[in-house]
């Protein structure tokens, strides 16, 4: 176990928490911008916004080492930003720009920033859990003490790959964390209607001899501390943990979904527990002033505004790019 990981197990102080709050604001404002750009037709295809899920990405990221690995889903903007992608890189990707994270080839569902360990966003539910398991195995083979984290939705717990990954990770005692963002819905169907246990991820952990923890996913501090502990444990060779972080999405599932299938009182209850408010309350209780909070958000707003402008003005993705990057040599030739 390294120094860094031990230090991080301790809880966050005010200034650290404030920095995380600003990151959450950055994500929230990026998501709002993505939404608006989609509605105005400047983002094509689809988007799955993570507004409401910010505390999970930000809290977890803060608890990881910079060289740890993250694997996310199609709902992955928050993880990309939490792992150091700029709102500009993200929005440019959504807007099919040459300056996008994936140069316009990936889109909203596949944000990736490999240079900071954000190893991709995967759009086939559950597919990335085995990948994270493999990255953790690789870390052990290379003796780097890195940890790999897979973030996934509640819906992913009913697909086979989830279980195969957990079992393999458990048997090999790999340094991998399985973090479920339980927002209580698949696309439009409540997860409870199609799942045999109340806590879709945590209640499955024991089936693979793993600890399963349910936490408040809207509390960035709780997420941070839980992930820090689990990561330290994984790093020291004590194996994986399943963490189920309860949260709620503020937008619909994707695109223009108005999310009418969610009862109004449920929405209201969750909106009152917006992760930004939860963080603000914590910060206030730690003595951070309303002004400082306001500044953090204003700073985030400024970054996102500039990002939108820059992304709008960036060059379009080059159509010739359609034929690059299939192979490691950069090309796409498949025959002589």
């Amino acid at each position: 176990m390294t120094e860094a990981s031990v230090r991080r197990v301790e809880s966050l102080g005010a200034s650290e928490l404030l920095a995380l709050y600003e990151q959450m604001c950055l994500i929230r404002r990026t998501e709002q911008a993505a939404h608006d750009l989609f509605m105005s037709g400047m983002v094509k295809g689809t988007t799955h916004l993570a507004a409401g899920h910010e505390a999970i990405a930000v809290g977890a990221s803060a608890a990881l080492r910079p060289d740890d690995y993250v694997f996310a889903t199609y709902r992955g903007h928050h993880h990309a930003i939490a792992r150091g992608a700029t709102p500009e890189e993200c929005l440019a990707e959504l807007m099919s720009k040459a300056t996008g994270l994936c140069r316009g080839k990936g889109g909203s569902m596949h944000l990736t920033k490999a240079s900071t360990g954000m190893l991709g966003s995967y759009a086939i539910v559950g597919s990335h859990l085995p990948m994270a398991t493999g990255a953790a195995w690789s870390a052990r083979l290379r003796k780097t003490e890195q940890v790999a984290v897979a973030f996934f939705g509640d819906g992913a717990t009913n697909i086979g790959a989830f279980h195969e990954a957990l079992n393999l990770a458990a048997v090999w005692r790999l340094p991998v964390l399985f973090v479920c963002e339980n927002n209580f819905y698949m696309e439009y169907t409540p997860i409870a209607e199609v799942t045999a246990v109340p806590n879709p991820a945590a209640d499955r952990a024991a089936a693979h001899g793993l600890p399963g923890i349910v936490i408040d996913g809207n509390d960035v501090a709780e997420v941070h501390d839980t992930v820090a502990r689990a990561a330290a444990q994984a790093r020291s060779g004590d194996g994986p943990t399943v963490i189920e972080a309860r949260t709620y999405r503020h937008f619909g599932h994707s695109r223009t979904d108005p999310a009418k299938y969610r009862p109004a009182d449920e929405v209201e209850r969750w909106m009152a527990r917006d992760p930004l408010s939860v963080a603000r309350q914590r910060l206030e209780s730690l003595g951070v002033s309303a002004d400082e909070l306001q500044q953090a958000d204003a700073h985030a707003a400024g970054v996102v505004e500039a990002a939108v402008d820059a992304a709008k003005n960036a060059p379009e993705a080059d159509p010739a790019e359609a034929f690059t990057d299939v192979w490691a040599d950069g090309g796409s030739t498949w025959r002589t």
Partner: protein
Amino acid sequence: MADVITYRDAVADGIAREMRRDPSVVCIGEDIGAAGGVFKTTVGLLDEFGPERVRDTPISEQAIVGAAMGAAMTGVRPIAEIMFSDFLACCWDYLANEIPKVRYMTGGQVTVPLVIRTANGGGLGFGAQHSQAVENWAFAVPGLKIAAPSTPADVVGLMAAAVRSDDPVVFFEHKGLFASKGEPAPPDHVLEFGQAGIVREGTDVTVVALASTVATALAAADRLAEKDISAEVIDLRCLIPLDVRTVLTSLERTSRLVVVEENPYQGGWGGTLVSIVADEGFDLLDAPVKRIAGACVPLPFADALEDRVIPTADAIVDQIRTLVAY
């Protein structure tokens, strides 16, 4: 009856007609019930047929298709939805190894009368994992019937044929066509499986198309007509059974063949069709055979890139002009 109907609504209509006719027809899939499907292709079914016959499932593609198979073997006619055709990969064992083989390997003891519906194809900017045209995956597996309608009326006619078939059918609905409109199907509309349609007659070149590429081929044919080139356009409608006869008969008139497919060139169904023609129809050919297919790359997100990867009317026009000059 409405003047026109969307392809999307035709799917729900096609299913509903069969569910009304035969109480053993049931539907399963993700979000198909109250939500009416991610593509709104199952709207109204839950209300009309109730939750025992229209069932939402967990995200468990293997369980969806595997359960449909077990039900089909025991007296029920399930229509299972796999939301995007890319996700067929998540239950490929059932499509490749189980459903198409169980009748054969049991010496004919069981039949598997089921339909697997799925939204296929690109053009909507959904990226590498939600845009593929994968009808060729199914085409590689003996024992599956394959339908891929291009119009609302054909959706209904082929759905009826699929549900009534005692063989397993993979039913490819094209995402890019959902919003398109056409004449509604007449009552009791049932098409015959493996019967291609000649959707435009012509004399200079035979253009074979399927699903999304039918409209593309017709658009190309319009533009070619301005240049006095007469293209015959064939809509295969099904890949299995493959209507080779209609293609060869057309070639007797035109002597030139162009196949337009959305799946990638490498391993695309057009290769098999062309290979049959290069054998049995060799004497009919007066010019090289052209395949205009998806590029051999994953599907890119950005529109400008995706347009380079999916067959366009421009590409068809170009190829045919060269070919006619041959």
